[in-house]
């Protein structure tokens, strides 16, 4: 089996993209950035990389159930954000 068949473009691109995003995230450690800028970079790179994994590696859109699975994934992300942000809101930010 040829290398081209075993190493499809989708996966290689996804892999390289993930590495690029990781290096981009590293910039917050390497450079002296403000807290807001650093955190924004981390949030953007993390969520994009998660999306790369989901779409290019996990084949989230390939089956007959893709609407259910996409809906479920959005709901799960919303849940995760509610739990994290809600906890920080109630436990820390609320105590101003």
């Amino acid at each position: 089996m040829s290398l081209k068949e075993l190493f499809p473009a989708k996966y290689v691109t996804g892999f390289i993209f993930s590495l690029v995003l990781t290096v981009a995230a590293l910039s917050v450690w390497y450079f002296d950035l403000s807290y807001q800028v650093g955190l924004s970079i981390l949030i953007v790179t993390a969520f994009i990389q998660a999306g790369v994994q989901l779409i290019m590696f996990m084949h989230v859109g390939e089956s007959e159930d893709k609407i259910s699975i996409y809906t479920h994934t959005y709901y799960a992300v919303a849940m995760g954000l509610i739990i994290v942000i809600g906890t920080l809101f109630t436990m820390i930010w609320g105590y101003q």
Partner: protein
Amino acid sequence: MKIDHSVPKEYATEENRLKIFGFWIFIGAEVALFGTLFATYLTLVGHTATGPTGSEIFEIGPVLIETFVLLTSSFLIGLSVHAMRLGNKKAMLTFLGLTLLLGLTFLGVEIYEFTTYVHEGAGLQTSAFTAALLTLLGTHGAHVTLGLFWGLAIIIQVSKRGITPETANKSFIFSLYWHFLDVIWIFIFSFVYLKGLM
């Protein structure tokens, strides 16, 4: 058992489709699980009491190794599933074996990381911060460990029974699990280590 030959083997039976669907639901639950661990960590990250802070104990070297190793293993498991869909059992097992090897490497580095922390006075009982940190990392590590055994079981079954709708289904679901663990690591890398070292 009706087999649909127009779709990849892992989707080819009704039972297979149910299992993949069910596993996606499980992943949603795991998002809530790790979300709670992140919420706990981010709440307690400043509660270092008399113990060290993150910036005092985090070392970028091992973290980069762990990240690169896990990312590559996620790439490799993707290649394994692709080879499986092409019917190439040898390539599939090779990529799967390499995935697990990298997973083992990841665990090795993480164990080194934990023992270093303990020696530096950042143990599980030191402070709320260390407890939250080690529990978040440890839960992810425990998931990886479980994955190694699971992957090993699949390697044995595929070697013995070949690529059947059943083994293909298990391998695909395993790959979903493994990719998910990498997604969690991306968040750990960003919001535990990098944020702590900013």
